[in-house]
């Protein structure tokens, strides 16, 4: 049977308790040993913590390697022609993933393959931005972050590694942040104008995070991180709803101001928002609404 992980402090607490139970006659010597045998020893616990530390260190190293490559390419970027730039970008992404597959399935080094895939995901995001820069593709900026996250999530699910879950959560958080607080144009990457800025994908992201957290029962160190995706999704839902409301108010105000001047209404048609209408009713005049 696989031994359950136990921190040093919890182990000490369990040892003290077992000693008390034994003294009170609640458990026999054999039962106490059987209970202790279910959990990892202090040596195994320290080895596990050491391997977590190594994992974090190599993860940080992979991150810095990615950043170093970005800096190296960025510094010499103007020296390359466009086809060379594209070949470099696609080659770095494809090459890193090929290395990841070789390390995982040929050399059987699963932990190190996770770093290769993590690096590949970083290169993928960098490649997206640089391709957009090469072709002057000017789109709604947060959409790039959304596409980056969409590319990372399948790998995070299939590898089930902390690093990629962390990257996916970070990307989704930044996407939500830029959508909530940034002003990156008025394009709606939505569903027929009914839902703004891809927020219809949020329940999907949230469901994936929830299912994983439920499966893992938030017992291991990655559990809270996966469930963090749920928190991000909830924040995003609130943020996007507020953003939508502020957009509606902005449009409504423009229309109302045009009406108050007696001219033709130059505002865009207003789609219904009960709260926006309520606020307009409470404040009465568009001038007071503008002050609020």
């Amino acid at each position, binding site marked *: 049977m696989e031994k359950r992980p136990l921190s040093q402090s919890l182990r000490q607490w369990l040892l003290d308790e077992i000693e008390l139970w034994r003294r009170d006659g609640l458990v026999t010597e054999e039962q106490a040993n059987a209970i202790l045998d279910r959990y990892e020893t202090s040596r195994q616990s320290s080895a596990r913590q050491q391997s977590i530390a190594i994992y974090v260190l190599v993860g940080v190293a992979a991150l810095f390697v990615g950043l170093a490559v970005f800096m190296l390419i960025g510094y010499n970027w103007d020296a390359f022609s466009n086809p060379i730039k594209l070949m470099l970008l696609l080659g770095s992404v494809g090459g890193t993933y090929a290395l990841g597959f070789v390390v995982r399935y040929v050399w059987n080094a699963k932990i190190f393959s996770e770093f290769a895939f993590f690096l590949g995901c970083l290169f993928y995001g960098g490649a997206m931005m640089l391709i957009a820069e090469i*072709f002057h*593709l000017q789109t709604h900026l947060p959409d790039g972050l959304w596409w980056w996250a969409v590319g990372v999530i399948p790998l995070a699910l299939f590898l089930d590694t902390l690093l990629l879950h962390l990257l996916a959560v970070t990307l989704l958080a930044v996407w939500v942040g830029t959508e909530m607080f940034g002003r990156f144009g008025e394009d709606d990457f939505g569903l027929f104008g009914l839902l703004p800025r891809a927020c219809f994908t949020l329940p999907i992201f949230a469901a994936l995070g929830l299912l994983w957290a439920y499966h893992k029962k938030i017992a291991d160190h990655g559990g809270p991180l996966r469930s963090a995706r749920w928190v991000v999704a909830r924040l995003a839902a609130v943020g996007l709803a507020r953003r939508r409301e502020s957009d509606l108010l902005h449009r409504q105000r423009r229309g109302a101001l045009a009406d108050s001047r007696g001219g033709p209404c130059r505002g865009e048609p207003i789609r219904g928002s009960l709260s926006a209408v309520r606020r307009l009713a409470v404040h009465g005049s568009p001038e007071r609404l503008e002050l609020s």
Partner: protein
Amino acid sequence: MRCSAIWPASKLDRVVEAIKTYERWGLAAGVGVQLLVLFGMIIMGARKALTGEF
């Protein structure tokens, strides 16, 4: 209502088992999605260049 009533653990276990079984194909599909996005961007850029909007 308990979570297990909505999504029984056994069903989720089967999904997770399937993910583990087809891990290799899933990873390949994930990488494929990323490359598809990159090629899609390149095609969009090339179209832009061909139509003179570059």
